[in-house]
């Protein structure tokens, strides 16, 4: 019976070529618009480090010796708070070693110049961090080695660079042993890594959120970076006693909360223990009460952190909503066309019914026809979606360059096509199967 209905469905497709083409085009347009925007949304809301990010947490203790920010004033504006901490706290948490791994993270900007002064990369974003960053964040080492905790403590002038920077500065990817100058300090390259740019850039949202052209290309111990006169680009607040206000592109981590602190915690017990450790840590800072501040500490998982900081741009959601509405309209349209086409065949339906076909069989036939036509639309939607994504990538905003169709979304496209077909077919198929056989046979 199913096969017979399928055959009838395909015969129906061929019977009305004009309306079939129209319906297929409509479905394809709706699906491709929807898939293009969903693919972008999917890329942007994806896990930045699958398999790792669920064990990473941002730890924050509020030890800034100042009244709770009174920046909100006549125009009542609050500034973004990236939950960073001061140098002394970062060092204390780092040496306490209460988590499985821990890393200090701060973005800085510098000119990178090869030791011979012949090649330079101006105003590059670099990452000042500590030894655990590489194993913790899954950075792939290509040549040489990572620096050690001992080198962190010794303020050793060593760096890791990525293969692209190695090629640009030294003309070779294996640049281990070469030297690069930042400010007036020469740093030794101890390792070369594969370009590393998780999206979104969750450990340094103050610098950028998404980027199509990579992230930092140089990593160095934060101790050595501070020694070289480099400094974090911004801060979340400074001690009241600190004389100059933190200026653009420069803030002193000794007095300003400007270092991110990430920890790796593998089990819920470890998370709970670390949470209480942080609470205990911040309660020891008696000086804070003088500024009318409650002892505050927080621990964010990567997912919580991304949600808190609104990393997915509103416009992307808006576009997905628009495309969804567009698909809905396409579906209404197709439902109308299908209803017209099925009812047009009322005579045929009547004869089938009169010859003994149950209502269910007629319903199945029409539903199959709707599903088949929608699947055809899905096939056509694939190249249209790829075209849409290509157009999107050429838009030139910092995130649109990331728009790709991954296998999951590829499968999603066809599931959606089938779903659309069934949904769209339900009402017309029910309506068509409800015709009275006697009436139709008589008038035919």
């Amino acid at each position: 019976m199913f096969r017979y209905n399928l055959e009838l469905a395909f015969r129906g497709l061929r019977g009305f070529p004009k309306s079939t083409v129209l319906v297929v085009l409509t479905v394809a347009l709706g699906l491709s618009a929807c898939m293009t925007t969903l693919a972008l949304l999917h890329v942007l809301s994806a896990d930045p480090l699958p398999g790792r990010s669920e064990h990473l947490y941002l730890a924050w203790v509020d030890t800034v010796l100042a009244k709770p920010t009174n920046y909100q004033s006549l125009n009542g504006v609050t500034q973004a708070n990236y939950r960073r901490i001061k140098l002394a706290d970062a060092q204390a948490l780092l040496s306490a070693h209460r988590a499985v791994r821990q890393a200090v993270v701060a973005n800085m900007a510098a000119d990178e110049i090869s030791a011979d002064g012949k090649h330079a990369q101006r105003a590059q974003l670099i990452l000042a961090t500590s030894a655990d960053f590489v194993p913790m964040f899954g950075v792939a080492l290509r040549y040489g080695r990572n620096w050690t905790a001992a080198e962190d403590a010794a303020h050793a002038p060593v760096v890791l660079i990525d293969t692209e920077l190695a090629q640009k500065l030294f003309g070779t990817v294996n640049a281990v042993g070469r030297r690069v100058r930042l400010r007036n300090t020469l740093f030794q390259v101890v390792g070369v890594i594969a370009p590393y740019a998780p999206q979104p850039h969750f450990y340094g949202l103050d610098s950028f959120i998404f980027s199509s052209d990579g992230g930092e290309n140089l990593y160095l111990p934060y101790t050595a970076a501070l020694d070289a006169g480099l400094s974090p680009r911004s801060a979340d607040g400074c001690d009241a006693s600190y004389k100059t206000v933190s200026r653009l592109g420069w803030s002193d981590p000794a007095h300003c909360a400007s270092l991110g602190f990430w920890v790796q915690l593998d089990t819920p017990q470890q998370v709970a223990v670390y949470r209480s450790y942080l609470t205990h840590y911040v309660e020891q800072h008696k000086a804070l009460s003088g500024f009318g501040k409650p002892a505050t500490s927080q621990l964010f998982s990567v997912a919580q952190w991304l949600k808190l900081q609104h990393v997915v741009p509103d416009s992307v959601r808006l576009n997905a909503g628009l495309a969804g509405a567009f698909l809905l309209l396409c579906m209404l349209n197709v439902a109308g066309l299908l209803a017209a086409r099925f009812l047009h065949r009322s005579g045929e339906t009547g004869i089938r019914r009169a010859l003994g076909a149950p209502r269910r069989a007629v319903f199945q036939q029409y539903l199959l026809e709707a599903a088949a036509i929608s699947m055809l639309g899905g096939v056509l939607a694939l190249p249209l979606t790829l075209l849409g994504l290509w157009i999107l990538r050429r838009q030139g905003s910092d995130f649109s360059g990331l728009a790709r169709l991954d296998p999951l979304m590829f499968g999603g496209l066809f599931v959606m096509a089938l779903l659309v077909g069934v949904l769209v077919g339900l009402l017309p198929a029910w309506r068509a199967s409800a015709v009275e056989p006697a009436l139709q046979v008589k008038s035919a």
Partner: protein
Amino acid sequence: MHPIISALKHHKTAVILMVLEIALTCAIVSNAIFIIGNRLAAMHVQTGVVDNELVWARSSGLDQGASAASATSRAQADLAALRSMPGVTSAVMVNSLPLSNMNAWGACVQRRPGHTKDLVCNVILYAGTQGTVKTLGIKLVQGRDFLPQEYVNYFPFDDMQAPPAVIVTRSLADRLWPGKDPLGQPLFLGDKARDVTHVVGVVGHLVNPRINKYNGVERNLLLPVTAAAVRGGMYVLRTAPGARDATLRDLPKVLDGVDSRRIITERHSYAQTVKDYFHDDRALIWLLLVVIGCLLALSALGVVGLSSFWVQQRTHQIGIRRAIGATRRDIMLYFQIENLLIVGAGIALGSLCAVVLSLFLMKHYELPRLPLGYLPIGALVLWALGQLAVLGPALRAAAVPPVVATRSV
């Protein structure tokens, strides 16, 4: 009940589908038209400077490792070379330009020191070297331009003595001293609001480097500084009409003549900069136009499809009506009125949806509320579209000969 309406009762499925379709289109199209209008209005902002006569450039190394004295002498050499270019009437150095989207300095200012209640934050600071007001073509509505001795080495984020004079925008003046004459008023700058300066001029319009909810549109002031203070800033050249493109082309050669080791990181005509600033808005407008076009085309197709089906289904009835005296015009009118009613129902439902959608957008995307005046626009567009779409099927219906009534019975 009128026969047109009672006839519709026999086509509930199709009518419901068509009404829903029109409603959805109406809701989206009226909101989209509103957003487009909103963006177009935003793009019409006047920068407050002479857009078409300016050229600007930035060069590397302007901000690094140089002492104040060497930075000043270097900038002066550059500016002298730039001023000597043919077609260049003047050249200055500023930290930023309206809508340039870069190097915006924000700060808090106070009317009285020590009163945190008096703090106005997120005020943009423009800093420019001697001749900035004339070069940019900023129009003062009150007061005077800076005097040569008022230009000092002042970087707002370091401990430095503030310049004695400041020019504020009308909108900042109204916020700081509502109802008072701003000229001569003291203004306190810096973190501890220690540095006092006085207002010497008021500018009618000068837009911020970027427009956002924190800094507003024109909440800024202009400081007279020397070249050493404008670290990481830009050279701005005012050119004679027609000389702009040639100036832009020759600019690297001239700057290289002064110091060939530097890299000119950016050079643009200012008109292009303003255009680039609105790139995203233009992209959104195009996107919405395409969406509107697709929605309307789809709705029209739907109307044509269903109307054609009805005409086909009712051929027999039309024949009977014609045979008992209905004119072609009557038949056409029947289908047109029917369409008017269905689209009308869709518009009624759609207007409701449009308001709901607008409230949703207001809540989540910081859009202003949809003015109700946009609803009739959407309604008219859809009615016209419906009538156009039904014209073909209605003409076909009117062409049905009365003799059909006598056939196939």
